[in-house]
């Protein structure tokens, strides 16, 4: 695999701004200690950060303006989404990931945006809003690729929220190293009435640590990930998050086929009495300033990630049908001159904006530390329902052309069905 140099890449994709900010700062060169050890995630005490990521200062006024940094990020990611992800998406959906695409994604170094400076990243604040914007913009390229790209961030954000400082300094530096490291959260379980708050996967104490038993499904990057965050019911204490390395004995990984999201590498994790050390319990041995693990918060933050994906893909649908219906001529004029068509497109725009505002509101409440359980629930309801409607209309408005894979709308249709189903994969 030929890796482009940073400057070549910047030249080719026009990623100058993000490249300047992230790559030329040399963040990738930062940490290599972990890679020498048997595990990437060897303890590295000297890197313990002195402070957790701060919360951004909440503004007083109702405002929908992006910060300068968010706007810059948006511009860069939208271009990456359109120029790079759209081209890679059709093959990736069938499971064939273009190595060139992976190299370009890896060079974006998205993980560094979530990791504190002390651990090799560039993050200063913990911002669910920024994370929602990133997910939205990448899903504008392709939801499957976005999920694959962001799955490691889901785990990183979970650690930023709930891990002890020792855990952060042990696990996070690996994500800023030269080689790209994949990781994913595993919440969903393979039965029809799955409830994120009642997990069948269990963890029991076994003296020096815990033993995990159960099955997880819809786990992104299941074959590529080196580290999993597994949600399991800890006997007597409720749901908890455990870190399980891919090579752990008793862990089986099974790739699966799905309606959509082929690019995300979804599959099952089977845990047949997997032993983990006591230190694998996220937030377990609290160091005083670690907040107690809050499962409801974790689930809600992950729902916002899903909502954000729906926003990006629904926007892609809107832009595509707008162009198509203006170009497509029937009965002597563009089909967009008919109210039946034009109104359907107006409805997409209305519902998408509603989805977006609900998601942003929940994320901004989460960011400032306000309760956001209700807001996340409302956002999820609208994003699941309206997102799917938009996906369906996207195909409908193209007629037969929407049903064949020449256009991306059939792929977006299959992806948008996942919004109501997927849980826990993309914590923001």
């Amino acid at each position, binding site marked *: 695999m030929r890796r482009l140099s940073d400057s070549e890449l910047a030249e080719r994709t026009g990623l100058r701004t993000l490249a300047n900010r992230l790559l030329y700062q040399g963040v990738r060169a930062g940490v290599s200690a972990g890679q020498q050890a048997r595990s990437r995630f060897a303890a590295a005490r000297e890197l313990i950060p002195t402070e957790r990521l701060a919360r951004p200062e909440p503004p007083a006024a109702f405002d929908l303006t*992006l910060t300068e940094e968010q706007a810059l990020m948006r511009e860069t990611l939208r271009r990456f989404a359109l120029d790079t992800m759209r081209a890679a998406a059709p093959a990736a959906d069938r499971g064939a990931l273009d190595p060139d695409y992976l190299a370009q994604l890896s060079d974006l170094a998205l993980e560094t945006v979530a990791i504190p400076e002390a651990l090799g990243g560039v993050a200063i604040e913990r911002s669910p809003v920024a994370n929602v914007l990133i997910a939205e913009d990448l899903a504008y390229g392709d939801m499957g690729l976005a999920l694959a790209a962001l799955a490691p961030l889901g785990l990183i954000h979970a650690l930023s929220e709930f891990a002890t400082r020792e855990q952060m300094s042990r696990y996070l530096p690996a994500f800023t190293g030269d080689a790209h490291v994949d990781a994913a959260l595993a919440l969903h379980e393979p039965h029809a009435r799955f409830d994120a708050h009642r997990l069948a996967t269990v963890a029991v104490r076994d003296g020096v640590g815990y033993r995990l038993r159960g099955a997880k499904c819809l786990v992104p990057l299941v074959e590529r990930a080196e580290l999993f965050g597994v949600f399991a019911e800890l006997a007597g204490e409720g749901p908890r998050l455990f870190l399980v390395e891919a090579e752990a004995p008793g862990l089986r990984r099974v790739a699966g086929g799905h309606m959509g999201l082929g690019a995300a590498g979804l599959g099952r994790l089977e845990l047949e009495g997997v032993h983990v050390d006591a230190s694998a319990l996220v937030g377990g041995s609290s160091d005083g300033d670690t907040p107690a693990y809050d499962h409801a918060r974790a689930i809600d933050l992950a729902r916002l990630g899903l909502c954000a994906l729906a926003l990006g893909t629904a926007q892609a649908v809107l832009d595509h049908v707008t162009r198509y219906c203006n170009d497509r001529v029937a009965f002597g004029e563009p089909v967009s001159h008919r109210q039946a068509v034009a109104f359907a*497109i107006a*409805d997409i725009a209305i519902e998408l904006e509603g989805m977006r*505002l609900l998601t942003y509101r929940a994320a*901004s409440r989460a960011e400032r530390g306000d309760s956001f359980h209700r807001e996340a629930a409302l956002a999820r309801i609208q994003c699941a329902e309206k997102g799917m409607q938009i996906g369906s209309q996207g195909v409908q408005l193209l007629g037969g052309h929407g049903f064949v894979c020449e256009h991306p709308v059939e792929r977006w249709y299959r992806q948008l069905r996942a919004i109501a189903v997927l849980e826990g994969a993309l914590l923001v």
Partner: protein
Amino acid sequence: MINLEIPRKLKAVADMAHEIGASLFRPISRKYDRAEHEYPVELDALRSILSGMEDGGATVGAGSIARAEASGEKKIRNGKNMATVLNVIELCWGDLGLMLTIPGQGLGNAAMAAVATAEQKQRFAGKWAAMAITEPDAGSDSASIKTTARLEGDRWVLNGEKIFVTCGARADLIVVWASIDPSRGRAAIKSFVVPRDTPGLTVTRLDHKMGIRASDTAAISLVDCEIPRENLLGSEEINTRKGFAGVMQTFDNTRPSVAAMAIGVARAALERTRELLAAEGVRADYRRDPWESDARAAELYRMEAELEAARLLALKAAWMADNRMPNSTEASMAKAKAGRVGTEITLRCVELCGALGYGDDELLEKWARDAKICDIFEGTQQIQLLIIARRLLGKTSRELR
């Protein structure tokens, strides 16, 4: 920086509006639903309360909508447009019909606030102004109105018939849309301030309506009705490039408020339904997923999501107006969404509460009758979709009809 919470200052004002809705409107809500066409004398007390609130920088009612003043500041403002949306929601949570007939707060006041000269504003200060646009043969197609205004010396002479004039029998002034040259099309349509006691102006009928019965809806006939030349709002010149856009501009500012009306009524219905269902053991407190909940609870969640989406769309449109961003599309989105979910939610609440919902011991059936108008007046659902679609698709009104 993204933040969708209401600033404390505006919340305090909205709390006052809520208090008016709760303690002044609600107790007489059913009374004036039954006593259609009777003037709600209780509202006279509002004149002083509202002027007190407005002195404090707040705005209440449809009439104050277009008064956001220019500001050179770059700072993000949460101003009068947003305050108005928030206040209208609370007042209409109280009662939509009563809110529409608050003395001195007519749609004509909004039009004057948007386009009147300083002299006109001063001359008509303190007056209650209704708005007369619709005619028996011209509704959404307001460019095809047949009412005419003929200049004779220094007087305009108006002739025509107007219907659906909200507050038409109660207001002091009626802002009448009329053509100064029927051969010149929409650009020749101007608006005129006509005092209601002008000879030749007659209220010919008060309509009986499905809902908002506290608000009078009048039919008006104008026969050789003479007004001073200075009562024309805007310019006398027929400018084919932007003439009609001027009179339509009022609606960019009022559409978020109409969305707010629907949101207020729907919230009232949803809250009451939640209470009635709670008494039957239906809990909708977000502890469980919709799919693990009672079907009624799941429906409450779904409706609340629809309502919250509509509310945020209305706030966004108002926020854009406050910050001088063009918001025509967003205003229409807010009205389209709120208009349809307002009707859907209030009707579903009747259904969810069964006999309690349908009977007149509760206000649910009334709210379901009231809400429908919000999807019709100041641009129907279909007109909003046309506006949005033309913008999105880059179409003219000739291409996308």
